[in-house]
């Protein structure tokens, strides 16, 4: 190999790298804590008036009061019951309708335009009708969440089935698999990732709709608690309630993450 004295041997200049921002693990929590501290400090020094925003410590205090009074679990229990019922029913119905729309041309032609027409209607606008249709008891609250969950589930399932690799379906057919086997063993597992990520969205929607659902004659429930706090201008309780919803959202997200990791472990 020529390693004699060559004129002007220069290293090649580096010009790659960059454009790959990674979540810097520690910065997130730091930003959070810093913001909370600044907020607390602002409140303590009076720079942020209590009218505008209560101190985080005040919100924490409200949360503690709620816990001490034993109402925390009453509110949470009532809301969870509505969430679980509304979400499960909406999801089951949505999966059923979504599968038929995903597999059959006629079902699709009937369902898809209806879904896309009804989905974007704000649920609060329909609350007065829900009261008439479902009364002011649990039914109307569950129904609000049901409708919020049903339509996006249909969309996610139909889309998921559409995106299953048709090559795999043809493979199944080429081996003479029964129709039901193709659906059960190829179509549904193939649509599962899309369905699960649909769950993430519908879970958020369900939690967001909790406040709207509990506008209708709810005595207990996190949404009712938030509404009451808003009416009473008790901003500390308001922030506490919102924090509970956030935590609920994080918890549900975590659960779905676990489910994904388990059900989709083949993705590695």
């Amino acid at each position, binding site marked *: 190999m020529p390693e004699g004295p060559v004129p002007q041997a220069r290293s090649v200049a580096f010009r790659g790298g960059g454009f790959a921002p990674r979540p810097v693990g520690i910065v997130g929590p730091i930003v959070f804590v810093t913001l909370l501290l600044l907020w607390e400090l602002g409140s303590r020094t009076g720079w942020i008036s209590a009218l505008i925003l209560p101190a985080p410590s005040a919100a924490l205090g409200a949360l503690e009061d709620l816990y001490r009074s034993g109402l925390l679990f009453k509110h949470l229990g009532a809301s969870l019951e509505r969430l679980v019922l509304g979400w499960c029913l909406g999801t089951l119905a949505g999966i059923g309708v979504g599968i038929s729309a995903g597999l059959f041309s006629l079902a699709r032609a009937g369902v898809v335009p209806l879904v896309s027409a009804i989905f974007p209607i704000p649920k609060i606008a329909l609350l007065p009708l829900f009261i008439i249709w479902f009364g002011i008891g649990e039914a109307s609250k569950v129904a609000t969440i049901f409708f919020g969950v049903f339509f996006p589930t249909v969309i996610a399932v139909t889309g998921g089935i559409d995106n299953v690799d048709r090559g795999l379906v043809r493979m199944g057919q080429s081996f003479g698999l029964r129709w039901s086997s193709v659906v059960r063993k190829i179509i549904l597992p193939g649509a599962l990732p899309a369905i699960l990520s649909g769950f993430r969205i519908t879970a958020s929607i369900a939690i967001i709709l909790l406040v709207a659902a509990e506008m209708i004659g709810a*005595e207990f429930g996190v949404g009712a608690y938030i*509404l009451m706090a808003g009416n009473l201008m008790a901003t500390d309780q308001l922030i506490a309630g919102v924090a509970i919803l956030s935590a609920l959202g994080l918890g549900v997200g975590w659960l779905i993450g676990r489910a994904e990791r388990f059900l989709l472990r083949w993705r590695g």
Partner: protein
Amino acid sequence: QEKITVGALRFTSHAPTFIAYERGYFKQEGLDVELKFFQAAQPVAVAIASGDIDFGITALTGGYFNLADKGALKIVGGLFAEKKGYKGMAIMASNKAYAAGMTSPAKIKGHSVAITQVGSSFHFMTGMIAAKYGFAMSDVSLKPLQKVGSMIGAVKSGQVDAMMMVPHVAIPLDKAKAAKIIGWMSDLGPYQVTTIFTSTRNTAERQVQVKRFMRAYKKGIADYRAVMLNQKKDPAATEAMVKLIHKYVYADRPYEKAAPGIKAGAVYINEGAALDVGNVKKQLDWFKAQGLVKTKMTYKDLIATGYADMFDVPK
């Protein structure tokens, strides 16, 4: 001319605002008033706290007291009050509950009551009934429905047993047999329903302006009392005043249809915007006792004196 903004709701009980405005009483005091209309009472208080408006009229609610606790609001006078002999808020039963025996306010115990929101004046009125007839708040189940319309719907359809309602809605409902009036709030004792209030800054920095506003407003009240509280005395004057009010209330309906509602909604209003201080204290204490208002504030911190008569002042 000083520019000020006044928050108002399109109710007959706000008529003195419209009368003073239309008849130029504000102008005479050198005030250039802009009326700002609200759909609900609650935001009026918030709007004063946030500086969007200068004067407002609203019922005393939990939200009001909590805002006042942050030092933003002062009551300067009283307006709508329950007084024996005058039609104020009605207590109503659904047909179903009435048939099942809930025929008087005393029998509301153990039934459901529709209110707009926790901490609203409807909530307090339920408290008054409970106190009067000696049952606890836990003996009734409250149904917060956010809107007056939903309350009416829920009682009409029998989903809720009882509610309190303004007279011009309650009477037609009763006549149409859609629900039953079983009593009147005025039978339960004095109740200062709405008050006139302004921001603490106004009472501290612009006392002259507040005084002038109240002077003009009292003229409006005097006109209203002279005509609307005794509508039969001078039908022509009544007609003229209803026409004036119709510009603001039920404006989207023709006059013939609107007039009965406006007339029926003419509730009692304190002379000279006098304030029932004792009742204000009672309301504050009730909200505190319910745990809806957490404050060390007393009724004295709520009120700015010197703008209207104060009566029933606790010793």
